[in-house]
């Protein structure tokens, strides 16, 4: 997994684990913004993201950092910590919507018209996508964030979301369908649907 906007800080992590406050500050400066943006994408509100970011780094400060295996990528590990934390928050709040908890195996997905899909993607801006993401259910949004923001592998996503590896593709595909519906709904409204 690669992490956008981050550099590996293995040395700083080692010093931070030894109790070096300056190293802790370096880790926070380098990774705090990216973790905040991750939380911002994964959680419903900006306040939630701020709180979650502080809680994640508080966890690290209070001892979670000792669980990090130095043979692996620190940024990848930190993203997994963040993903688990955000997912725990969402789970605690029980805000997973029905469509996420229902037996999605039984709901077939409609095959898209390629040309129509291509046009939809062509027309949409990043901002519209961000607005549409905010309308998605927790699992769908989390899956998309883990995959397309954190660039996690399917194995890592399966681990973070607690689903089988073979199911990750389905989760992502359904999330994309939800996203398209949200995008289309928005464009229909903008086209004059005021009722």
């Amino acid at each position, binding site marked *: *997994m*690669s*992490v*956008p906007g981050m550099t590996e800080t293995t040395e700083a992590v080692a010093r931070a684990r030894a109790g070096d406050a300056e190293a*802790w*500050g370096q880790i*926070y*400066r380098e990774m*705090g913004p990216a973790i*905040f*943006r991750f939380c*911002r*994408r994964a959680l419903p*509100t*900006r*306040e*939630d993201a*701020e*709180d979650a*970011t*502080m809680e994640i*780094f508080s966890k690290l*400060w209070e001892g979670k950092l000792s669980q990090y295996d130095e043979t692996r990528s620190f940024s990848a590990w930190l993203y997994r910590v963040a993903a688990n934390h955000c997912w725990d928050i969402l789970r605690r*709040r029980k*805000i997973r919507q029905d469509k996420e908890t229902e037996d*999605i*195996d039984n*709901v*077939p*997905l409609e*095959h*898209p018209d*390629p*040309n129509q*899909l*291509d046009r939809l*993607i*062509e027309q*949409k*801006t*990043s*901002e519209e*996508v*961000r*607005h549409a*993401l905010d309308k998605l259910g927790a699992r769908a949004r989390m899956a*998309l964030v883990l*995959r*397309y*923001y954190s*660039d996690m592998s*399917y194995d890592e996503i399966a681990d973070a979301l607690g689903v089988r590896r073979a*199911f990750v*593709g*389905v989760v*992502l*595909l359904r999330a*994309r369908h939800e*996203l398209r519906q949200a995008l289309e709904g928005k464009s229909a409204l*903008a086209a004059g649907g005021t009722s």
Partner: protein
Amino acid sequence: MNEPANPLAPEEAGGTTEHLDEMTCLLYAERQLDRARAQAVSAHAQDCAECRTLLRALDRESRLLTRAMLEEDEPLPSRLAEFQERARKSFGWIWGVVLGLAATGVYALYTGYVEPLQQRLEQAGFGGTSLLSLLVFQGAFWKGWQSMMTLFEVLAMVTVAGFGALIFRRRLRRGSAFALVLAGLCAALALPAPAGATEFHKGDTYELAKDQTVHSDLFITGARARIDGTVDGDVFFFGQSIDISGHVKGDAIVFAQSVRVSGQIDGNIRSATNNLNITGTVARNVLTFNETVNLDAAGKIGGSLTAMGQTVSVDGHLGRDLLDMGDETIISGTIEGEVRSKGRSMSIASTAQVAGPIHFEGEHEATVDSGAKLASPVQFTQEKRQSQYEQGHYYVWRIIWTAAFVLFGLVLFLLLPKFAAEVVSAGERVGAPIGLGVLVFFGVPIAALIAIVTVVGIPLSVLTVGVWLLALFCAEIVVGAVVGNWILGKPTDTWGLIGRMALGFVIVRIVYTPLAHVHVIGALVGLGIWIWGMGAIALALYNRLQPTMPQSVMPGPVPPVSLPPHTTVGGIQPA
């Protein structure tokens, strides 16, 4: 599971090909297919324009998603920037200061206000234990008030609601939170009154005829009431005037312009009225806040009379002590206990009989007519007219109260940092908050008064007045923060805002304190501060309740964004 169908069906008999399903295309685009299946998809896509289009659309969708999530559409919050520094700080000393100041404030409140009142009430014969036990545990007082929404209940509700809002604020969207509060309020108001032995009457006039008996408490709201009959329980009255000529076996709790008691009350009278005239009998104590109290020559109070008002006249018989703070005290009847009075003047007529000592603190010595039977001479204390500015403790208390206000502001700003910033920002506009402040300052109490004439409206109006008072209490803090901002510039974080609030508040206090004692000007400046601060709070609340407008979509090409180095673009799963 919606497992993808065979993605690579062979050519059918008719020469047409079956298209790839979307799941297979996605897995291919995400490099999740094994080599053999990926090559087959690649080969199929070369001959099938539709599947090629789908693959391209999925790939573009992936890129659009990544780009949308990577773009920094909002800045990093300042509190996160401070977090690292704050995490290293110890807050122990801050909480030490907070607790110390809080303890000082409580002590100041107790010694300044509660303890003297407690002593006087004890001297007046209200149980002789403590104010707390008097208020909470003594049956007579508590019995009368427990059916009502007391100040304690309101404060407790506001506190619980505040904590509830803090806990749930992140879980609720703004609209739903507001709807929830409204729904809760409506539900609370719509709930039936708790089952109990209370009879309610609402209307312009109420009359209980001489031969009628109410076998429970009686709760009346209306313009006028007359009780000629018997009430087995307590009487509660909110209205213009009430005449009790019958028999009340419990207490009378009255908020009215005029109260006349010509009958018999076996319990106590607790009242806030304009005129209280007793020509009948009250078996126990009378506690009243009003303009004129008159215990008529034919009237009798079995216990004590505690009055805070302009004129207190005792012509009848008082079984125990008289405690009064007001302007004028006239004694021409009999008092079995002692007298403690503070006011401008005291007159004791020749017909007066006082069995206990008389303490009077006022401007002039009491006038005692010859023939008055007093147990001892009046102990007079000249009211000190020394300027408070010459007294050292005045400045000490000003500093303590200023520190207490700053502490209060600090706690508020830490509890509600965003809202505090919004309030201060609203306050900086000056014109709008002052305009709105005038409306809120005068309008809310009037609305509360209108609401209080209905039984259902009483809790609502008490709650409204409570919120109004809280806003009034916070107004000077808000103005202080605005002034601090003007002096030091915009803060970058909550602690910066708190610092500015503290500085501005101290400056406002320093400027306002001498002005407060200048006739008219002081009152106007104080009023201006209240209106300005309240208006800022109201404006911030108003802004919060406005629906948020969607951000306008920026037209034009998508700005270039560098993709992460390992972003998948489709193809064969890497080894």
